[in-house]
């Protein structure tokens, strides 16, 4: 264990912060704080991706998940005006009753998973191609799928708010 802390202290701190921010996002009574916890978790995932030799995925994670998604969540909270002091006070008792199982459950799961005996993985040289080569040659159909999903999402949102205008008339 001391060897782990000496040689991989950054990984341990990043993963510890990831778990803590995820738990904070779940347990926080305020939605805004939950969203901030999610953004911090995204930042920790980004650092973990950089540590695992995946910088391009890390950049996507940071810009899209930590930036865009947090902005969309905060806009939604402000548009729906959900965060009032009364609603938070009303929900807090019910939240304690529902969520008190989570910390002991996480401790038990953590101990159980940490007990699993794993073997050392030897450092493997890169057997695959560079990410750009894979994306543009082997997995180019994924790009078509991504464009289709993006268009489906865009049309979905347009239709949702178009329907809404119809009802308003």
């Amino acid at each position, binding site marked *: 264990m001391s*060897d*782990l802390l000496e*040689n*991989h202290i950054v*990984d341990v701190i990043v*993963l510890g912060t*990831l*778990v803590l921010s*995820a*738990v904070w*996002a*779940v347990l926080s009574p305020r939605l805004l704080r939950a*969203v901030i916890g*999610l953004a911090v*978790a995204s930042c920790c*995932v980004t650092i*973990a*991706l950089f540590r*695992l030799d*995946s910088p*391009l995925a890390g950049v*996507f*994670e940071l810009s899209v*998940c930590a930036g865009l*998604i947090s902005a*969309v*969540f905060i806009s939604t909270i402000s*548009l*729906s005006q*959900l965060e009032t002091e009364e609603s938070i006070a009303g929900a807090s008792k019910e939240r304690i009753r*529902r969520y008190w199982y*989570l910390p002991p*459950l*996480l401790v038990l*799961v*953590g101990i159980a*998973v940490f007990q*699993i005996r794993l073997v*050392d*993985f030897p*450092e*493997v*040289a*890169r*057997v*695959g191609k*560079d*990410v750009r080569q*894979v*994306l543009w040659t082997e*997995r180019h159909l*994924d790009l078509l799928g*991504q464009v289709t*999903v*993006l268009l489906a*999402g865009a049309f*979905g*949102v347009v239709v*949702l*708010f178009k329907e809404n205008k119809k009802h308003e008339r």
Partner: protein
Amino acid sequence: MNAELLSVYITAIVLVATAGLYYLLVTTNLIRAVIGLELVTKAVTVGLVLAGKLTGNTGLTQTLVITLIVVEVVVMVVAVGLILLGHKHTNGVDVRQLRNIKG
């Protein structure tokens, strides 16, 4: 990769996924349900990249993670649009209120 470090990574992945799944199961607030889904996706992202690092195939796993992020954003935006529409009808984001909607 060191077995102890691998244990730490796998434990963190399982814990974040457990927290997200618990959130999805327990909450009745739709925005919180989407946050739970995001947490599970974070765990899957780290798991995929860890697998790529162990097998030396980081190019393929990064490609998969980029696709995952695109799908994640689209699902999240459509879910938020539905939540806002539901909020206009029920003046809340509680799942229990949606049971009263007919048609």
